């Protein structure tokens, strides 16, 4: 029979277990900066033009729906070449990189990603004129990915 005492003891053990959880491998601000620099080749990134659609409160970090759209006419002269997604507190900062062409028609891409912790998601788009535009989204993740044991 489960009593209130058992529940409390169980809860206490769980709390200790969470505290003793081994430190997870994380990307650092340096590896993040290196990953961003590898994409932008050190060029300046301006804020704007990019819109991120992602739930601000994520219940399960194992599969988070993400939609990125870039304000671009997608013509031969003015289109989006690439879109890169970065997450600073995942084990690796790179998440996914998309390559688009004028034949994409619309600069809208959706996918599902993993998030290792509450963090700020960074999306950078490269336009055909060589300029880079970015947008950030702040997220709270209640159940992060990568912590479950098989």
């Amino acid at each position: 029979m489960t009593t209130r005492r058992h529940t409390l003891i169980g809860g206490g053990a769980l709390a200790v277990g969470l505290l003793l959880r081994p430190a997870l491998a994380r990307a650092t601000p340096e590896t993040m900066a290196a990953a961003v620099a590898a994409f932008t080749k050190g060029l300046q990134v301006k804020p704007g033009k990019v819109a991120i659609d992602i739930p601000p409160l994520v219940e399960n970090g194992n599969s988070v729906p993400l939609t990125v759209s870039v304000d671009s006419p997608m013509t031969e002269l003015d289109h989006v070449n690439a879109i890169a997604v970065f997450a600073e507190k995942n084990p690796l900062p790179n998440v996914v990189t998309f390559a688009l062409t004028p034949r994409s028609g619309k600069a809208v891409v959706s996918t599902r990603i993993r998030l290792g912790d509450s963090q700020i998601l960074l999306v950078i788009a490269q336009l055909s004129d060589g300029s880079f535009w970015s947008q950030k989204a702040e997220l709270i993740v209640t159940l992060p990915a990568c912590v479950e044991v098989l």
Partner: protein
Amino acid sequence: MARALINVPATAKKGEAVEIKVLIQHPMETGFRTGPDGKLVPRDIIQRFSCTYDGQEVFAAELHPAVAANPFFAFFTLATASGPLIFKWTDNAGKEESQSADIAVT
């Protein structure tokens, strides 16, 4: 053989931007998780995905372990000509798989 669900409209008007949805069955094992024996489970991910249509690669993605299991992509392409859209993906062991879907453009 990984299975993939591909959703391409059967018909489209010329010049219209059509939405393509792809769901590939794949574990996307990150290589950061430990198995029951305490050892890391080896990484097994799709590294590159591409869509070729009417003689040109219209969409490509480079995947990292942070893409969720059973990768899903939704993207647009302009309907230019009737014919197959060829989807190709390669995993980190270099194994390549592909699947195609037809579209009729009027």
